[in-house]
């Protein structure tokens, strides 16, 4: 029987001062796939329930595309294509300063063959539920996302960039795992 091959590579828990971004650098090139789990909230303050963050590889700000499928608080299911947003991939929403207290988004990202010379695919499943009442783009939502980084470089760093000049709040967590197929 083969050995278990899920390895925790890095973790970040945001401290009291907040953080406008989180980066995992020097990602080892010895795994097959990467798995990321994020629980996040930020301090953006405006008349909506949700803000968001982007995902960026290797510090590169170009060549990202995605399709998302979103169900929101208005009972609407919608699909949108996107290019580069906030210098990376739009990843669905997260609760913000005006959202119900203590609510955090949960997002899972799967990145297969991250060391290959192919373009890099990302599969994401996310929820941002906060008991908010705003519908449409400004309210809570459930999001599926398929994304592509059209770049052949191995992924060596991953950044999470909070949008609209805001910061992740304390207790936001970011976990990076490596998965080996042998």
């Amino acid at each position: 029987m083969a050995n278990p091959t899920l390895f925790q590579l890095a973790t970040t828990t945001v401290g009291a001062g907040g953080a406008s971004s989180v980066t995992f650098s020097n990602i080892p090139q010895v795994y097959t796939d990467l798995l990321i789990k994020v629980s996040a909230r930020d301090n953006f303050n405006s008349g909506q329930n949700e803000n968001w963050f982007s995902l960026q590889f290797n510090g590169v700000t170009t060549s990202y595309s995605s399709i998302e499928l979103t169900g929101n608080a208005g009972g609407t299911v919608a699909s949108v294509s996107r290019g580069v947003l906030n210098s990376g991939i739009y990843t669905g929403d997260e609760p913000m300063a005006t959202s119900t207290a203590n609510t955090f988004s949960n997002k899972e990202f799967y990145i297969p063959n991250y060391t290959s010379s192919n373009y890099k695919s990302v599969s994401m499943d996310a929820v941002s539920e906060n008991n908010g009442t705003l519908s449409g783009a400004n309210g809570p939502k459930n999001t599926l996302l398929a994304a592509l980084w059209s770049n052949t470089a191995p992924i060596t760093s991953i950044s999470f960039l909070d949008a609209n000049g805001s910061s992740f709040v304390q207790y936001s967590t970011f976990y990076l795992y490596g998965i080996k197929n042998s």
Partner: protein
Amino acid sequence: MASGATYTPIATTTLGSAANSVTFSSIPSTYQDLVLVINYGQTSGANGFSVQFNGDTGTNYSGTTINGNGSSASSSRYTSANCVDIAENLGSTTLGASTIIAHFMNYANTSTYKTVLSRGGNAATVTQALVGLWRNTSAINQMIISLGGAFTSTPTALAGSTFTLYGIASA
């Protein structure tokens, strides 16, 4: 950094040449769940993958899919099919651009029918979530995974496409 306790590789295949299907046999019954990860491109067209378990070609499969193609959302359903879909119509000719992650719950239980929950996506075609059912109480010991549910020679996934089956322990 600490190592994890699960996600054990059972089998992996990287296509050496274009092919329609991959078979994983002699799947041990020692895990709680299975996870199948496919990262692929195809020689032409836009297909997903379907699975037959234990060689069952009968009309014992059904499923429901929700889709987003970048401009609209939709849902579809099938019953009494001869295979279960783990992705539909999402492929492209770009190797690595299409990813499928399928979870087979309680695959070794001999009292229940088997369910699969999967998500698939390609940033140029579709993002989707699927649920499927195999109406059989046998433990899953074999999977035939076919592009487009064809179970013949075409369509074909590109050489370099990867297929890995993991076992997930419950504790």
